[in-house]
C-alpha cells in the first residue's frame, strides 16, 4: 500500500504543478483587468524612453504619496519597445499607460487605444501636436523635438548655407581647413531616417504623397525633391566621413572636439555636448534641401491609455496623465527632469539649452516642416531604408541616384 501512496503522491504533485501553471497564466490577465487594478488603486506604465525612467519613477512615487494610487513603472530597453509592447498586450499583461510613436502605430493598436478628446486638460495641447486616430485624440505628446544640421558656430556661419551650391562650397572650404565638414552616424534614424524626412516633408501634402507612393502611382525617382535629395546625400558621402564607421557617440565626440563642423542631429543631442563641456557655441540650422529654411519639428512619443482595461483603471490612468500635465510638481518634472520641450500651452519651457531654444523658436513662429517619417509604413526605416542606405555608403561607386532607386525598391518591399 505504501508504494501506491507514492504513486498517488506523485500524481498529486504533478497535478499541483499543472494547477499552479494554469493559475500563473490566468492571474496575469486578471490582475491587470479586474484584480487590484479594478478599483483604481493601481496603474502600470510601460513607456519607451529609457532616459526618463528614473525621473518617472520618482514622479510616480510622489503621486502615490499624494493620492494613494499605486503606480508601477515597467522597465524598458528602448530599441525594441514596440515588439515588447505587442508581446505584453498579447499575453494580456498590457500596461494601463503606454507609448505610441506615431499615427501608424496608433492604427495598428486601434483596438487598444482610448479616446481622450473629451478630457479638459487635453485642450492645452499645442495645435496639431496631439496624436490623432481619425477624429479621436489617442495620444498626449511627450514634448516637441526638432532636428536639422547642428553646427559649430566658430566654424560655420548659418547665413552661408542656403542651398545645394553653398552647402557644397562650404563643405569644400571646411575640408580645405582640415575640418571634417559633416558627419552622419550608423544608427538607422541618424543614417537615413531623419535625413529622408526632408524630401517627404517638402511635398505639398506629404500624407497624400506617401499614400500615392504606396499605391504605386508615383515614385521617388521621378519626384524632384528626391532627385535633389540624392544629390545632397551624394555630396555628404563625397565630402564627409563614412557614417558606417561612426556611431552616435563618436559622431558627437568628434563634433564636440571641433573635428567635425556639422552633424545631422536633433536637440536631444545637447545632453552629450554638455558632458563634453564644449567651449564653442552651437546652433541648429535647416537642412537646405531645395532652399528649405525650416527645421523639422515633431513629437517623439505620445502617452496613450489602454482602452481595454476596466473603467476604473482607465479613469485612474487619465487622472495620472492629467496630474502630470497640470499640477506644479508634474509640470516641473516634465520640463526639468524629463528634459522635454513641452507641447502643452499651459507648461512653460523655462530656461532651455541652445539647440532646444532654436527648436522652440521655430515651433513658436510656426516656421517648421513636419515629421513625415511619422506617417511612414511601420518599420520601413529600420527594415528597408537602412539596408539601402548602408549599401549606398559602403559601395564606393554608388551615386545619389542609386540611393533614391534603392529607397524606391525598399518602399515597394515594405508596402507590397
Amino acid at each position, binding site marked *: 500500500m505504501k508504494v501506491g501512496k507514492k504513486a498517488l503522491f506523485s500524481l498529486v504533485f504533478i497535478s499541483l504543478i499543472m494547477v499552479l501553471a494554469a493559475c500563473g497564466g490566468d492571474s496575469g490577465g486578471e490582475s491587470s483587468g479586474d484584480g487590484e487594478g479594478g478599483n483604481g488603486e493601481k496603474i502600470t506604465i510601460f513607456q519607451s524612453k529609457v532616459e526618463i525612467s528614473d525621473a518617472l519613477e520618482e514622479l510616480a512615487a510622489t503621486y502615490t504619496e499624494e493620492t494613494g494610487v499605486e503606480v508601477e513603472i515597467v522597465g524598458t530597453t528602448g530599441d525594441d519597445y514596440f515588439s515588447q509592447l505587442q508581446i505584453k*498586450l498579447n499575453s494580456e499583461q498590457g500596461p494601463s499607460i503606454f507609448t505610441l510613436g506615431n499615427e501608424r502605430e496608433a492604427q495598428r493598436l486601434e483596438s487598444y487605444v482610448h479616446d481622450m478628446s473629451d478630457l479638459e486638460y487635453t485642450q492645452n495641447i499645442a495645435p496639431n501636436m496631439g496624436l490623432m486616430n481619425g477624429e479621436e485624440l489617442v495620444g498626449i505628446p511627450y514634448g516637441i523635438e526638432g532636428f536639422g544640421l547642428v553646427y559649430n558656430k566658430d566654424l560655420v556661419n548659418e547665413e552661408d548655407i542656403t542651398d545645394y551650391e553653398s552647402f557644397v562650397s562650404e563643405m569644400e572650404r571646411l575640408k580645405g581647413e582640415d575640418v571634417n565638414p559633416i558627419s552622419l552616424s550608423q544608427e538607422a534614424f541618424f543614417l537615413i531616417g531623419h535625413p529622408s524626412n526632408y524630401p517627404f516633408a517638402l511635398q505639398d501634402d506629404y500624407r497624400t504623397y506617401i499614400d500615392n507612393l504606396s499605391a504605386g502611382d508615383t515614385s521617388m525617382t521621378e519626384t524632384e525633391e528626391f532627385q535633389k535629395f540624392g544629390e545632397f546625400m551624394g555630396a555628404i558621402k563625397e565630402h564627409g566621413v563614412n557614417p558606417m564607421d561612426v556611431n552616435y557617440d563618436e559622431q558627437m565626440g568628434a563634433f564636440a572636439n571641433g573635428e567635425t563642423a556639422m552633424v545631422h542631429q536633433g536637440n536631444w543631442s545637447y545632453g552629450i555636448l554638455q558632458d563634453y563641456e564644449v567651449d564653442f557655441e552651437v546652433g541648429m540650422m535647416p537642412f537646405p534641401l531645395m532652399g528649405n529654411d525650416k527645421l523639422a519639428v515633431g513629437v517623439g512619443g505620445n502617452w496613450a491609455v489602454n482602452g481595454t482595461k476596466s473603467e476604473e483603471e482607465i479613469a485612474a490612468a487619465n487622472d495620472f496623465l492629467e496630474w502630470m500635465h497640470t499640477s506644479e510638481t508634474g509640470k516641473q518634472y516634465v520640463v526639468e527632469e524629463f528634459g522635454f520641450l513641452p507641447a502643452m500651452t499651459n507648461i512653460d519651457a523655462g530656461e532651455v539649452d541652445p539647440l532646444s531654444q532654436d527648436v522652440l523658436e521655430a515651433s513658436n513662429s510656426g516656421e517648421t516642416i513636419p515629421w513625415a517619417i511619422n506617417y511612414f509604413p511601420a518599420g520601413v526605416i529600420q527594415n528597408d531604408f537602412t539596408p539601402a542606405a548602408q549599401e549606398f555608403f559602403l559601395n564606393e561607386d554608388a551615386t545619389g541616384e542609386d540611393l533614391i532607386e534603392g529607397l524606391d525598391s525598399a518602399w515597394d518591399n515594405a508596402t507590397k
Partner: protein
Amino acid sequence: MTKRKKWGWFLLFTGPLLLIFLTVVIVPFIIGTFYSFFQWDGISANPMVFNGLENYKNLLEDERFLESAWLTVKFTVFSVITINVVGLSFALFVTSKLKIANTARTMFFMPYLIGGLILGYIWQFVFSDVLKMVGEWTGWGSIFFNWLNDPEFALYTLVFVFTWQMAGYVMIIYITGLQGIPKDIIEAAHIDGANKWQQLKSITFPLLMPAFTISLFLTLSMAFKIYDVNLSLTNGGPANATELFAMNIFNEIFGYGNYGYGQAKAIIFFLIVAGVALTQVYVTKKREVEM
C-alpha cells in the same frame, strides 16, 4: 504491484520534465503551426484571416528569405568545420603531456562562459576599431579594415566569433572521448610500428566517432539556430548581408508585423534543422565502432 511501483517512480521523475517540455515546446509548436495558415499581424485584438497554404507558397518566391537560407547554410558549413577542427586540435593539445595543458584547457573553455550578446559587442569593437588601427599601423589596409562593413567579410566575422565561442565547448566533448580510448591500444599500435599520424587516423578517430556524433549534432543545430551573436555583432547588416534564418524570422514577425507568414517560415526552419540534424546523426552513428 511492482508495475504500479515502477509507474509511480517513472511519473515522479519524468512527469515534471514532460510537463515542462509539453508546455514550452509541444504546445507552442502546435499553436505556431496553426498560426502559420493565417494572415495576421500579431496583435490579438486584430482579425486573423485564414489563407490556407498561401504563406508557404509565398515562401518559395521570397528572395530575401531564400538569400537568408543560403547564408545560413554557408555559415553553418563553415562554422561546423572550423569549430570541430579547432575544438579537436584544442582537445589533442590539452590531452598531451605539455606542462601548460591544464591552464590552456581553462583558457580555451572560457569564451563559452561569456554570453553571446556580450561577446558580439566585444568583437564588434575589435573588428571596427582595433582591426582598423592595426591596418593603419601596419599599412596592410587591404587585409585589416573594418570587416563588419564589408558584405563579403561580415559573414566570416560571424563564423570567427562563433568558432571562438564554441570551440572550447566541443573541446570538452572531445577530451572526454579521447580519455575514453584505452592506452594499451595506442601502445600496441606504437609497437606495431604505426607513426603518430597513423595512430591518429586508424585508432583515435574511429574510436572517437561517438564524440564526433555529439559534437557535430550540437554545432550543426546551434549554428542553424544562431541569433544572439548575429544580433549583437552585425544585426543582419551591412545591407542584410548577414541576416540569418532566425533573424529573418524575427524581423518578419516583429519588424514587418507578418505573424502568420513568419510562423510559416519558422515551421520550414524547424523541418530543415530537424532533417539535417537527424540525417547527420544517422550517418555518423553508422560509422561508430564497437570496441
